[in-house]
């Protein structure tokens, strides 16, 4: 039996932590808390509701929010859609201008493009080569009718951390603009304080932090009385903001995962950061290798690298039996589709297309790094020979 590939794709998803899986399993069967959390007229429902509220408090505590600010969703994509469409429609009479960045996740950019089709105006900010959107750029983009600024906390491709507190202060001063932050990659990697930072809406995902897929939350600030128009109508769950029967096991899984994510955040960041730098040292020895994004401004678990003279899809295919990583390009089209994030940083097409994202996590080890360096080095040399580079 072959050895499983070293998993270095934690930014795509993480395995569910055993403790999390155990708590989730307790919510599924007849003996467990399987009841509908809205059916509080019997013990089954009441028991489930209590677990959901405990989980809500755990999620809130992990990001410095109040429990009643947490709205359960199916994940960060739904949270981003709910935040953007929700703000845009609720405040449409006070303005139809939005500010965001070219390096945002598609689940932010695509709703913005849809709003443009419906008549809203969107300003897309370009980060510097380090991936950072400077607060001054946001300040310059704000207009009297700006109702929303959407900036991610940790970039999913290059790991750059944005100064969301500074952007929040700008939005607060503007009076009309609310700040939405996509923090799908943040929990467990970088401390985040929703209240202290002055964020108005915060998107969260469970499966990036050792929780289950299909679970997320949108945190909506009560401090600034932020209002949103819902996307889903029905049973009126989640204060009418997100109708649909609550998935007790998903909420419990997310709550447990987020509670675990805060344990030894600093120590884990140092451990993973050391592994990342070992990986970079090993890969850079190849020559013709470029690090994307600024290491000093990024979370420790992501390393994005471009390799001269190789094609991204082939590189991933060449290493796939030994290391699981992501490529920055889309591989299905006849036309090459290089990473739009790297293109926004100013990388040329060839380097943007030949990038790999290594993302480390809780179970990453020194052996994983050695395997990755060896596998990628061999593959790059072989592919350069095949391409005559």
């Amino acid at each position: 039996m072959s050895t499983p590939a070293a998993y270095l794709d934690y930014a795509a998803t993480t395995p569910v932590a055993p403790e999390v899986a155990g708590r989730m399993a307790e919510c599924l069967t007849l003996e467990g808390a399987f009841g509908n959390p809205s059916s509080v007229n019997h013990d089954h429902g009441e028991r489930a509701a209590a677990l959901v509220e405990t989980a809500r408090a755990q999620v809130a505590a992990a990001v410095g929010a109040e429990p009643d600010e947490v709205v359960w969703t199916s994940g960060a994509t739904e949270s981003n859609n709910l935040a953007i469409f929700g703000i845009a429609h609720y405040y449409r009479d006070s303005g139809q201008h939005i500010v965001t960045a070219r390096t945002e996740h598609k689940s932010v950019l695509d709703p913005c493009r849809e709003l443009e089709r419906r008549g809203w105006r969107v300003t897309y900010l370009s980060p510097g080569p380090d991936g950072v959107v400077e607060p001054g750029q946001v300040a310059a983009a704000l207009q009297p009718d700006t109702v929303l600024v959407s900036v991610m906390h940790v970039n999913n491709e290059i790991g750059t951390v944005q100064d969301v507190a500074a952007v929040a202060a700008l939005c607060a001063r503007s009076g009309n603009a609310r700040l939405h932050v996509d923090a799908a990659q943040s929990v467990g990697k970088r401390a985040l304080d929703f209240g202290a930072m002055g964020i108005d809406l915060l998107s969260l995902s469970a499966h990036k932090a050792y929780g289950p897929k299909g679970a997320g939350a949108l945190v909506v600030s009560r401090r600034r009385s932020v209002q949103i128009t819902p996307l889903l109508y029905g049973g009126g769950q989640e204060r009418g903001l997100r109708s649909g029967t609550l998935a007790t096991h998903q909420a419990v899984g997310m709550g447990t995962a987020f509670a675990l994510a805060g344990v030894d955040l600093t120590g884990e960041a140092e451990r993973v950061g050391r592994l990342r730098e070992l990986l970079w040292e090993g890969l850079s020895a190849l020559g013709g290798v470029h690090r994307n994004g600024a290491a000093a401004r990024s979370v420790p678990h992501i390393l994005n690298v471009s390799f001269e003279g190789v094609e991204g899809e082939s590189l991933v295919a060449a290493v796939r039996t030994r290391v699981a990583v992501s490529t920055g390009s889309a591989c299905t089209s006849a036309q090459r589709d290089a990473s739009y994030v790297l293109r926004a940083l100013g990388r040329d097409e060839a380097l943007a297309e030949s990038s790999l994202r290594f993302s480390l996590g809780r179970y990453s080890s020194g052996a994983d790094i050695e395997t990755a360096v060896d596998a990628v080095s061999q593959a790059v040399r072989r592919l350069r020979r095949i391409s005559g580079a």
Partner: protein
Amino acid sequence: MIYNELTRTCFENADCAGTASGPDWFRGEAGGRSRGTWVQFDVQVKLEEGNADEGNSDEGRSKEGGTIRSVRFLAFGCPHVIAAAQWLAERAVGLPARAQLPESVQSLRRRFEVPIEKLGRLLVVEDAWVAALRGATRAD
């Protein structure tokens, strides 16, 4: 991306990768690295006995009717491109030198189970192949 067995085998064992030159070698290329796919073939064509004696010099003689003796390739592209180039380089040896693929692009697409949206990449392979064989078969 899921690749079929033939694609994996040819991609992982691209033994014909490289370059070659000489009097009977003909080179053709297509695509561009900046566009994501670039392929170059070096094809060695052996003249048929009768053809080789025709004419007073190499100049003006045609390789039409010749046989492919050896193929080398370079490829910058996805695994399907590298695999298709490798397969052609292996399978074309011994075939008549004609400025066309040994089988159609559509047939290659089926053989390697290439998604329809990547058909354009196989066309680059075809263009490089035809460019090399055109050099071998035209009367200079």
